[in-house]
């Protein structure tokens, strides 16, 4: 039996039977939802250039697996087609973001924001907006102060490093030579280390960043 489009009661009944693990209902619901999920992933992948989402079919299946798990665990209750689609979109988002996280190690974040234009990373604002843990936020703010006290060139290379850019990435984006960026980065980080001491960062926050004890007291 195929649930006609737009027949909300029939769809509700189908979801209900699937929640009770009726195999036929699960299969029918799966086939009903799959094109929607796949289409959304496909379009979003194209719009956002999700080069890291290499297997669309696998991603679609992951979304549906998560959906059915949520259905069985009572984390989703049918309240209309609109809500069902919204839940599927959110689930697709989490699935896609997990794939993005796995690929993140290979990527640096570009400083240039295609949609907003211009450089988009403000380390001070980032530090000020750190989460609720006051100690951690203060540590980030100390770091931000140390970074912003650097001269312009050193500050830029530190911010780029903070965003995961390697020397070759910085070379590509700034037009400097590799030797120039290397020297700048080395001097910038040595300078930063000194300023972190001056800000009291090493004493207050060294442990949080794995620099407790010997390193923290050395200065």
């Amino acid at each position, binding site marked *: 039996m195929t649930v006609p489009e737009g027949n909300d009661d029939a769809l509700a009944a189908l979801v209900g039977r699937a929640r009770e693990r009726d195999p036929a209902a699960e299969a029918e619901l799966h086939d009903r939802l799959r094109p929607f999920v796949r289409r959304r992933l496909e379009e979003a992948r194209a719009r956002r250039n999700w080069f890291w989402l290499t297997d669309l079919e696998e991603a679609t299946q992951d979304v549906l697996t998560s959906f059915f798990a949520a259905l069985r665990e009572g984390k989703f209750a049918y309240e209309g087609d609109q809500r069902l689609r919204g839940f599927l979109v959110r689930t697709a988002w989490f699935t896609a973001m997990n794939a993005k996280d796995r690929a993140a190690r290979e990527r640096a*974040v570009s400083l240039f924001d295609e949609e907003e234009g211009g450089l988009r*990373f403000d380390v001070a604002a980032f530090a000020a907006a750190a989460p609720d843990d006051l100690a*951690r936020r203060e540590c980030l703010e100390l*770091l931000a102060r140390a970074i912003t006290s650097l001269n312009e060139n050193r500050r830029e290379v530190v911010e780029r490093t903070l965003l995961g850019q390697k020397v070759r990435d910085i070379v590509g984006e700034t037009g400097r030579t590799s030797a120039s960026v*290397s*020297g700048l980065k080395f001097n910038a*980080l040595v300078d930063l280390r000194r300023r972190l001491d001056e800000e009291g960062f090493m004493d207050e926050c060294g442990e949080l960043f794995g620099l407790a004890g010997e390193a923290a007291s050395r200065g």
Partner: protein
Amino acid sequence: MAEERDDLEGLELPQAPDPAASRAYREAARVLRGAAPAARRWCPPRGELVLAAAELGRERAGRRDAHVAACPLCRDDLRDLGALEAEPSPSLVARLRATLRLVVDEAARAVRVIDASLPGAPAPALAPVRGAGADPLAVVAAPFGDGSLEVAWVAAGRGADLRTRATGGAPTEYRVDLGPAPPDPDAPDAEPEVWESRASDPAGAVALAGLEPGRYRLAVYAPSQREPALEVVVDLARVDAKSM
């Protein structure tokens, strides 16, 4: 630690730095790694990014919003969500592949369809157009968006002119790429060669003139699509009076 060794190995320095400076460098590098947005240590859980302020509480929502404004990675995530939430382009047949064999009858100044494979499309129609100066043409149509894309071939000398036209509810904005056909139609090139790329005019039409006999790949892209909605491998042959 491997990461610490890599920190200095990636640098092109004129001479080895002294140990104290090296140590300072490594310690600063470690701090930056820990503080990096990419480490996501400072980002709220993703679920929190999408909660309404009422669900999160005003103060927490305020901090969440401030973080999003400052964090390029969280903003990136939310744009990804926006792309998923957006209604798709008018329903397109994803990567509809077709083959088309045509022959140009030079003597008759006509193009004929020998064989066409367009799953789900209406049967190919020969639609001779009678009018001042119009040549008989061969037309096939394929589903495209909410309508169809007509692909018409008009005899032109030894070869043919190609015209595409969006009809019905098909998007009038699209792009046509023309290039050599892949050697194996069942294993198309990962990055096919493109000889000509044309955008449709405001009326939803594209014209490519003077195609010599040969094998072509015709790909049609809708707006914002990186994959073609329609791919046709065209085998254009020529028949002249002698061969007939």
